[in-house]
């Protein structure tokens, strides 16, 4: 696959091809353009240091990269700042983001992942949203929707599995 080859042989191209998806993910979770930019820098640095450990069996390179971004983002939200561990390890200079950089981050339009979510069957989409985003328990969702708890579990499980499959597809 092209992304896997780029990850191993042409990291700059891999960066170019995936910068926007990483930025959009980070800014959507943090809603802080500067923090998102810092997270993107650390995510790519961590991916560079860890790329030899990537195996296609783990899913696509893009999903692997977003997994790193997800962990870095969760860590940054707990700490309130981004740890520059990988960047320091690589001897990278710290980047001061300009207003233009931050405007670029905020200019990223929401869309594709919303569309991915929208492509799920409605019952699965609602179940995933209720369980993951609204943090309702399976029993609560079952009460509200009038189906069994077992059915709700199945919808959430299938919805998340479908999202994983979509993330494993080549970047669009």
């Amino acid at each position, binding site marked *: 696959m092209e992304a896997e080859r780029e990850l191993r*042989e042409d990291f700059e*191209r891999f960066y170019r091809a995936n910068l926007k998806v990483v930025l959009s993910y980070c800014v959507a979770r943090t*809603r*802080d353009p*500067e923090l998102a930019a810092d997270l993107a820098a650390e995510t790519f640095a961590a991916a560079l240091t860890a790329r030899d450990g990537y195996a296609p069996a783990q899913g696509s390179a893009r999903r692997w990269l977003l997994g790193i971004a997800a962990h870095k983002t969760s860590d940054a939200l707990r700490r309130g*700042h981004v740890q520059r561990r990988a*960047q320091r390890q690589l001897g990278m200079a710290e980047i001061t983001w300009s207003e233009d*950089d931050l405007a670029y981050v905020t200019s990223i339009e929401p869309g594709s*992942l919303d569309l991915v979510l929208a492509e799920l069957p409605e019952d699965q989409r609602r179940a995933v949203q209720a369980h993951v985003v609204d943090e309702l328990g399976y029993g609560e969702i079952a009460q509200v929707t009038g189906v069994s708890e077992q059915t709700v579990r199945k919808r959430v499980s299938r919805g998340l599995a479908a999202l994983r499959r979509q*993330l494993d597809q080549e970047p669009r």
Partner: protein
Amino acid sequence: MTHGFDQLARELSGAERRLEVGARRPHTLHGLRALVLPLATSAVAAAVLAVVLLTGAGGRRATTHLRNSGPSSSSAPPAAPRQHGWMLPCGQSVGTQPPPRAIHVLLGALALPGRPDESRALQTGRDGARLFAKSGLWVRSGVRFQLIVPPAVRERLTMTWGNAGEANHGNVMIDPACRAASARWVNFVGGYWVRHPMCATLIVVSDGRRRRIRIGIGTGCPGQPGPAAPSQR
């Protein structure tokens, strides 16, 4: 392409060369902005994606779940700020709601309405000889920050947060001890007094970083719509 992300590309390329992993030398990066993927996400999709990425078979090891990703007691607090200011008492908070989706978080620490790139100017009302614009302040639980009115502007602008009246007019601090037990945000109410409607500049400091921001008070900053209703002047 913006300069910062171009610089990041160069830093990564340099790091790759130093690692001597790639057989080919990276190309010079041009036209990044035109080449990056047209893929983005909303906060909801990102939240779902976080769970997809952090859990389940086939992904990286699942060590964190979104709903457990609140402030950690083991986190090291950020370095102490150098400047001194009025410490906003945590007990004067009024809630633990997250900021509205339209308002971006600054430096991972706080959110303020009225910035020109994301909302209309704040509405003012007459308060004696001055105008007052009521506002909210959303603070990330457990962070330290300062909100500063630049000295050059203090003749024309003062602010208040919590119940302190004008005691905290120029430099407001909050420390990491101000954290909600089970929420990520702490809310305060307050606002700004101005002599005349203005596009005000404030400085936010957190974790050793500074950001200069603008707030439309009673009138829009350049490119910003004015208040939703006419302000008193």
